[in-house]
């Protein structure tokens, strides 16, 4: 009873800042500009399917690359001495102290056709490279910005794995590599899933990275939603798209949680 009462401020917070806005989004999604009920917003969404798919594809790709880069990093940090762990962990977190916008703009300055890298290449007498305004640049931006979200949960899970379990595996005949595949990796699955989710969710809904680093062909669903609210001034369609995106994200998260076999997973 006592603990329930202590949680009540949080419930109020949830009601005001989560449930009510969600209700407003739903209400907008099913009304037109006059406020009358309509399914028109939903039916018009069909034209945005390719953009939805592209957003999901790029988000999955970046999450996967984050996993490939983040796992060895997290593994190294978790295996370091306590002092080394603090230092390495701080280095991973340090870029996050800077503004997200600034970090993305810094990449633009690096990769632009007249940016630092291409100027260097030109000064060597070579042809400049098309480093920006393509899908790869958008994925790069996503990976760079969201990598810490992958490393954090992986590091936490790897750190929690009981040293005795890896010793027991060795004792029972595992070579060093087999200890990893048979014990460490399976036990870190919850961390992989939380990391994947934590990268996928912001990546699928981003708009700034694709605007700055992508081309007109890499318009993502986040860009469309943003433009509906700001440029096109059609908040009803924007709300409908947001709603659809939310359903898609929840579906993806649910599918990913399936893999964890009901084990504890930190969702978003």
């Amino acid at each position, binding site marked *: 009873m006592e603990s329930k009462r202590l949680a009540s401020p949080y419930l109020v917070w949830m009601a005001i800042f989560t449930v009510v806005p969600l209700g407003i989004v739903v209400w907008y999604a099913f009304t037109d500009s006059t406020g009358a009920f309509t399914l028109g917003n939903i039916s018009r969404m069909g034209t945005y399917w390719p953009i939805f798919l592209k957003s999901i594809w790029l988000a999955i790709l970046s999450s996967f690359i984050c996993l490939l880069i983040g796992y060895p990093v997290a593994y190294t940090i978790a295996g370091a001495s306590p002092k080394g762990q603090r230092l390495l962990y701080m280095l991973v977190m340090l870029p996050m102290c800077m503004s997200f916008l600034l970090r993305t703009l810094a990449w633009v300055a690096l990769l632009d056709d007249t940016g630092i890298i291409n100027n260097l290449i030109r000064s060597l007498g070579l042809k400049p490279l098309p480093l920006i305004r393509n899908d790869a640049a958008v994925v790069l931006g996503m990976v760079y910005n969201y990598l810490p979200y992958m490393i954090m949960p992986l590091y936490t899970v790897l750190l929690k794995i*009981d040293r*005795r*379990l890896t*010793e*027991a*595996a*060795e*004792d*029972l*005949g*595992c*070579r060093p590599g*087999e200890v990893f595949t*048979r*014990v460490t990796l*399976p*036990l870190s*699955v919850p961390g992989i899933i939380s990391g994947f989710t934590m990268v996928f969710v912001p990546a699928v809904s981003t708009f700034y990275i694709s605007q700055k680093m992508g081309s007109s062909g890499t318009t993502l669903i986040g860009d469309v939603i943003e433009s509906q609210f700001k440029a096109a001034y059609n908040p009803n369609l924007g709300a409908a798209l947001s709603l659809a995106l939310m359903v898609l994200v929840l579906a993806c998260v649910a599918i990913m949680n399936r893999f964890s076999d009901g084990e504890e997973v930190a969702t978003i």
Partner: protein
Amino acid sequence: MSKELIRLVDCTMAFDGETVLNSINLTINNKEFLTLLGPSGCGKTTTLRIIGGFLKPTSGDVLFDGARINDLPPYKRQVNTVFQKYALFPHLDVYENIAFGLRLQKLPEQEIDERVTEMLEVVSLKGFEDRKVTALSGGQQQRVAIARALVNRPKVLLLDEPLGALDLRLRKDMQQELKRIQQQMGITFIYVTHDQEEALAMSDTVVVMNEGLIQQIGTPEDIYNEPVNAFVADFIGESNILDGIMREDFVVETFGRRFQCLDKGFQKDEPVDVVVRPEDIDIVPVKDGMLTGTVTSITFKGMQYDVIVDFKGFKWLIQTTDSPKVGERIGIKIDPDGFQIMHKSKYSGLYGDYSSFSEEYEELSDAEYDPENGEEGETREASDGE
């Protein structure tokens, strides 16, 4: 039975310059149940981890069947370990936990199945194949850990305080069970514990350790009846340890009186430590007593009373089925075989006086604490000291 299997030669282990093991020499025979016994920090777990291959001794050699195995990694050793708190794999069920080692050997599925089933029977866990290990009780997890180690048919099973997390009743059952399994499988068990009762009940050989040194190696009877120094006498069971002088063979003088004993081979008038076990003392009327003292406290322990008796300021523990009254003058009688005479060691004078009964004694026996008696003993001790 007595073929040598493992030998530690001058094994020293130091962590950051701190010596944890100091030149240990130990021979372990095939099919033996050997226990490393000692208080925490004595080096027993370090010794076990050296045999298991998780630690390399700073200096010295580890021999297995005559071959040096210092640098052999754990997965190549014919040794398996039952870890403290079991270390079962939480992502695998009971069956797969036990099959873990066999799968690594890439044995055919049918053989794996046969051997796992056989092990489940040995540890009485038939029908638990598909359970999650996290859903098992402590005792059941313990059995899975033993089965998981034994299914690989190791030559040696190492057990690191395997019963520490179980309650008293279960611990007693598992002691019997472990002894049975060891005899059934016919392999060597090296068992680490700080529980002296456990060590005495199960072992063929007990190795008593303290401060990185082996204090004594012997059968449980030897260790209990013939402790070599005050540390062993105090750590194994309860002991009254008195200052004495060996006047001649078979005669020891303590408390200003000469007693008959069965020990010989000491120098004439050599100062010695005299051990008298609490159960070897008979309470008799004052006029028949070899010594007389005053009862200061009595604790009922079920099977017997623990009586603390003050003899000229030195408090003895006597275990008896009689129940004298607090404050009563009593006499005591000790038979010659009730004395164990030990050379003086660096542990002399540290143990064996029950004046500090309330702290030391209660800590050792896990028994219910009677604050009234305890406090009384303590205040008296304080006033005695001043």
